[in-house]
């Protein structure tokens, strides 16, 4: 009897978890759509993200060189495993490839 009861509870639990998972999938779609609306809105109404000022507020910019890369959705960024160059110096690489529009790169905080 105990095992049969246990079986019934487990079936009920799994049913509840299935509902929970469906609800999460639905909520995720809502939020993704909402983010897309904000981004479309920002492009349509030209509310560009006033980023540079914000970034310069970040403690990051004081010590480091910052490159901002703005590219169309779907642009591919590829980073190969760093390797040793001829002179024994490490080489680090970034390849950017867009198929739907030009890529813009901004050197933010270097003369």
């Amino acid at each position, binding site marked *: 009897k105990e095992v049969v009861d246990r079986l019934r509870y487990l079936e009920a639990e799994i049913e509840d978890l299935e509902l929970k998972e469906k609800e999460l999938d639905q909520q995720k779609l809502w939020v993704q759509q909402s983010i897309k609306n904000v981004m479309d809105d920002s492009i349509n109404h030209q509310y560009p993200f006033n980023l540079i000022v914000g970034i310069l507020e970040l403690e990051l910019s004081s010590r480091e060189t910052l490159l901002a890369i703005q590219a169309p959705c779907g642009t591919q960024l590829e980073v*190969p495993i760093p390797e040793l160059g001829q002179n024994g110096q490490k080489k680090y690489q970034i390849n950017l490839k867009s198929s739907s529009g030009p890529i813009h790169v901004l050197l933010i905080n270097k003369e």
Partner: protein
Amino acid sequence: ACLTPRSALLYKFSGSPSKSLKDINNMIKQGEHR
């Protein structure tokens, strides 16, 4: 040219999760220490 294909990590704008960038940053860090 190296015999084994050089592997690389990929990221797609507005398509990949932030975790992909964390993996790339970790790979660069490991490459730096190696």
